[in-house]
């Protein structure tokens, strides 16, 4: 094990995969010479050279179009969209082209590509640089959607995403870039589609993603210590494929489900998980399913306001306690 930050794990994964496979190439804005605006890609240009690590103009459609065309013709591109909010300027390439063309072509071509992006709030960047948009991607057939909650998973899941034969949208939660944790040394790959039980428990299942996982864990700790409630925390890790097996096993055990998501309220992955459970595990439930989300608003910029609207451990605790009433 080595201690890596969430940020360092990004370049570790890319380097690991570029070393083993010449067809892996990487493009994006300021990712080469500058090492990325979040310093997630430092050292890659030096090691792999300007033919494999390429700076682009501010042309997100061209970036993803280039990745798509390259993926169809034998390469395994990694593209960076600097902030996930910017998916909106190139959404067509993602949802109408990359996501659909394999299906439309009756399976003739593949899109083994990864689009990495800095996602989510907490950085006081205001509404156009703070969204969590993994939901946008989850709603579109043909996209795999991954969002790690710690450095080890960044390395392992990003490596798996690069090896995956299908297009993966890889959401890096920007509020976590600085967090260090243990990462296995040497080759590390974590298969997509396996949720992690981040903490075991028996009274209630809390399902969380990315930056909400540490908050859920914090809430679980307080629930145990102060309220004698044993919460199981599931880190979803990948929304597509979704590990319903792990989630369902937990809910079957606890009979109670809380989802915690950073997204705005409507049509999030929490709603999807909730409605799956309401359909398939209805008779196992002991109480209503609760979703904790950011309200259905754009994110405000001021630190105090942003902190007030994003799901906090306190808000999670409050919801679990109400449920237990």
């Amino acid at each position, binding site marked *: 094990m080595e201690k890596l930050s969430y940020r360092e794990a990004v370049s570790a994964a890319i380097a690991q995969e570029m070393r083993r496979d010449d067809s892996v*190439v990487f493009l994006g804005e300021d990712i080469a010479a500058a090492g990325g605006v979040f310093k997630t890609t430092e050292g890659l240009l030096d090691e792999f050279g300007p*033919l494999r690590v*390429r700076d*682009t*103009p501010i*042309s*997100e*459609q*061209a*970036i*993803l*179009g*280039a*990745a*798509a*065309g*390259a*993926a*169809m*013709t*034998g*390469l395994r*591109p990694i593209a960076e969209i600097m902030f996930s909010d910017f998916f909106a300027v190139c959404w*067509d*390439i993602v949802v*109408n*082209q990359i996501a659909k*063309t*394999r*299906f*439309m*072509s*009756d*399976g*003739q*071509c*593949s899109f*083994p590509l990864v689009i990495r992006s800095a996602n989510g709030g907490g950085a006081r960047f205001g509404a156009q640089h703070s969204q969590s948009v993994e939901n946008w991607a989850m709603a579109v*057939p*043909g996209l795999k959607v991954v969002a790690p909650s710690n450095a080890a998973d960044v390395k392992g899941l990003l490596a798996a995403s690069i090896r995956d*034969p*299908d297009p993966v949208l890889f959401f890096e939660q920007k509020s976590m870039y600085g967090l260090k944790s243990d990462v296995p040394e040497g080759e590390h790959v974590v298969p997509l*589609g*396996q949720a992690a039980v981040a903490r075991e428990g028996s009274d209630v299942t809390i399902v969380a993603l990315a930056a909400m996982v540490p908050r859920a864990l914090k809430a679980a700790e307080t629930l145990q210590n102060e309220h004698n409630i044993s919460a199981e925390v599931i880190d979803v890790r990948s929304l*597509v*494929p*979704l*590990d*319903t*097996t792990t989630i369902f096993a937990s809910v079957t055990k606890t009979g109670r489900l809380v989802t915690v998501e950073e997204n705005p309220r409507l049509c999030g992955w929490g709603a999807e998980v909730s409605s799956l459970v309401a359909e398939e595990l209805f008779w196992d439930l002991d109480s209503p399913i609760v979703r904790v989300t950011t309200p259905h608003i754009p994110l405000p910029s001021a630190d105090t306001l942003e902190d007030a609207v994003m799901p906090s451990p306190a808000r999670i605790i409050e919801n679990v306690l109400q449920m237990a009433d």
Partner: protein
Amino acid sequence: MTTSKGPLMTAAANPQTPDTGKRLELYRLMQACRVMEQRAYDLFMQNLIKGTSHLALGQEAVAAGFGAAMREDDYTFCTYRGHNHTLVRGVSMTGILGELMGRECGLLSGKGGSMHLMDVEKGAMGSYAIIGAHMPIAAGAAWSAQYRKSGQVSVCFFGDGTTNIGAFHEALNFAAIWDLPVVFVCENNLYMEYTPIGDVTAVKNPAADRAPAYGLEPVVIDGNDADVVYAVAQAALEKARDGKGPSLIEVQTYRHGGHSRADPGKYRPDEEVAAWKERDPITTYRARLLADGVDEAAIVAVEEEQAARVDKAEETARNSGPPPLEIADTDVWADGSSRWRN
């Protein structure tokens, strides 16, 4: 017409007459396109083709000229008006008509439809129905060829109306700065659906007048002359293969019919339609071949061959059943499934 002195305009101004074999190939490709699309039109009228379809009747010289010039492993990216660009790569006519009809024998087993023809094995990398989207994708395939040093060139067809969308701009700049081996071919047929292109475009030649914005040579050629298209295509492909970067070629042509199935094309002045029909790329080319001494029997043989080919294709497609329903939810993923959970 722009009178640039670059290699492409030189080729356009002085197209070398290809040998008779090549010229008959050009004629054959145009004939194939023509009979196939005329048949598609008939099949619509019989309601055997559902949905929509966008014919390129009148524009055949463009597809043929490029088709004849491209290397077998080059890439074609085209649009919903892409039946011909797909066909000229050697793709099965039965597959195309079958796809339009939604039959099992369709190129994509009925999953793509008329706007999405694709045959990767033949280098027909897809027909795209969102305006402009395929331009950066074509650049991406060119980037891949450049990276793999394969010598392949990516050829991307689109219309005049497409020059006003953002993806056009991004793709051109991107291809130019990376010197990508891609040839962008704007088929200026004077209309963006029902709207004359001049009404919605700030310049006269929607592609050529923008070429300098990407450091490229402005090129406007006669798209109804297969020899000219062929010559310019050769020059652009060679330039790309030589590592000299992208080209943007504006090809002037005209569609004989409406924009799509639903459109009778009434917004166009009768004289305009008549004048362009006079300049039909196929009848004029036939006349030129004869004038240049090509044996009429050889020409007629091509015509008969293609007439028989389309009859056969239609028959096979008609006899093909609907695709099995089980395929409706396959091939979302590389494992063949559409499974989104474990």
